[in-house]
């Protein structure tokens, strides 16, 4: 539904200003745009959703790669948009398929998380892209700009600052869109492209079997390169153990494995 008329009783059950997810938008980005559209401080929508869904168990810095259904359901209702559109702002479906589980954990994307953003994306469309949350990525593929994780004042960036305005540094108030923009150096282009190809492959077509196959290719590749036996190799990817996608992709790129090499033969 595009426009909600005041005739509709749902008017009173929606936020004053409705926003809808943009293409490839990350869930916290939708929340921040909702805060901004409604004139609320950063994180107000998220706090309200947590209270409404009676879900206060998030840590102080939730990653929100996976979002509880109750929160998605509530936000879909308050914005009057289909829940599927909000679901697509998370990595729930992709990680569920990749790891063969109905209830994936956000740590399956990466055990370590750094929030970073493209100042040009924020300046142009207030967009926090979901794909920019891929581990090891350093540049925005669209603008070819360096991703920023700290403000000019030295403070680490975080989506929800509490009392400040959305999309600003909570310490100095600088708009994230005004952060310095540095172009990608030529030498980094190849690495970034490789990372993008691997993530695309795993997140779009990945299955547990394909992931295990890629890990096996990596093991063999590292063994051949190092000329060491399995037992002697210091960082061999263990068998029958879950590791995050970010870890695998990082190791594949580091080892110089090509995306073509991990395509299954079957």
């Amino acid at each position: 539904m595009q426009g909600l008329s005041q005739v509709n009783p749902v008017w009173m059950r929606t936020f004053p200003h409705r926003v809808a997810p943009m293409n490839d938008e990350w869930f916290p980005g939708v929340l921040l745009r909702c805060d901004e559209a409604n004139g609320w401080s950063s994180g107000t929508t998220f706090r309200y959703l947590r209270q409404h869904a009676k879900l206060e168990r998030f840590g102080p810095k939730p990653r929100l790669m996976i979002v509880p259904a109750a929160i998605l359901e509530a936000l879909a209702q308050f914005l009057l948009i289909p829940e599927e559109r909000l679901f697509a702002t998370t990595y729930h479906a992709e990680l569920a398929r990749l790891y063969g589980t109905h209830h994936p954990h956000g740590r399956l994307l990466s055990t370590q998380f750094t929030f970073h953003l493209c100042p040009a994306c924020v300046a142009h469309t207030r967009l926090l892209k979901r794909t920019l949350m891929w581990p090891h990525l350093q540049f925005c593929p669209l603008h070819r700009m360096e991703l920023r994780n700290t403000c000019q004042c030295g403070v680490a960036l975080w989506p929800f600052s509490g009392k400040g305005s959305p999309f600003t540094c909570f310490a100095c108030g600088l708009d994230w869109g005004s952060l310095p923009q540095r172009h990608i150096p030529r030498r980094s282009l190849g690495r970034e492209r490789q990372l993008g190809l691997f993530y695309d492959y795993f997140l779009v077509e990945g299955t547990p079997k394909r992931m295990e196959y890629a890990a096996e290719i990596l093991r063999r590749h590292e063994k051949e390169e190092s000329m060491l036996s399995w037992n002697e190799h210091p960082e061999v990817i263990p068998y029958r153990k879950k590791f995050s996608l970010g870890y695998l992709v990082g190791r594949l790129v580091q080892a110089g494995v090509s995306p073509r090499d991990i395509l299954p033969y079957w």
Partner: protein
Amino acid sequence: MTPHPPEHHRGAFVVQDDFLETAFERRFQGLLRHAWLNRSWHIIAAIPGSGKSWGIGDLVLHSGACKRETGITRLPLLAIRAPTNSARELALGMALAAAFGIVPRMTGAALRVWLVQEMARDEVECLLIDDAQELTLDHLALLKELTDNLAAPPYQRQVGLCLVAAVSGTVIPFREVLAGPEIRWRQFRRRMDTEHPYHLVPGHTEEEVGEILTTFEDLYRSQLASLQLRRWAKTIFTWLTNPILDPDATGRVTMDHLSRLVTSSLRRAYEQGAIDVDATTLQEVADLMILRRDEITYLDESPFQEPDLPREVS
């Protein structure tokens, strides 16, 4: 009562409760539109049951308010009912905020700032407050503060204001307070319309009652094929201006009384299988409304008949 062959499949009587643009509504909505168009301030009063809330509701529905997915919301007419749960100004602030939709809880100071920003962002042009007789002076002070902040830079938005009150007689609420010497109320009074700050909107004349009865004929003809209501206009007007129903001796008829009389009479006629309503049925309902209006009904048995259920034989 006009006889009618028995119908075996006649469904339940359907009450037509759509908004009717009666003479009262034309007068009342005309004032609201004037305030909206000219951003003028008025206190508008009418006796209870005139149709004030219906008129406000209808105007709001056609005001073009819209929430778009793009984050743009338009609310040209911000209409609320005066809070009755608290005399504090925050109660009015919360009622105003609720008109925009779901708003997370915030402090009183934050709410005041947010309301001004939101009214500017949504391009509010006129504030309508129904049941304004319930407002307190604290509420009025908040209205003045909000509209003053909206009129000042950076927003510089003038908004109309209509305080719509239910009254008895000709006493208009807040008139005396606003005529007082206190600076705040003198400022408030100065913002009110120069020519017509206070309005008392009367109910319907006999001729206007006739017009409404004609409309009712059209509305109910599908259920009562030979319905002729207008011929009873004078009688109905006389009944409904009885001192019991018109204690302020306005000599006018309210829409509430008129629609109750007509609906109840038509329902009775319909249930008796008639295709028109007769004087006896109208008289019975008028008696109920005038002479037996406070009568108590003793209910000794369940009003709903339970179906005969098969009993188990022990």
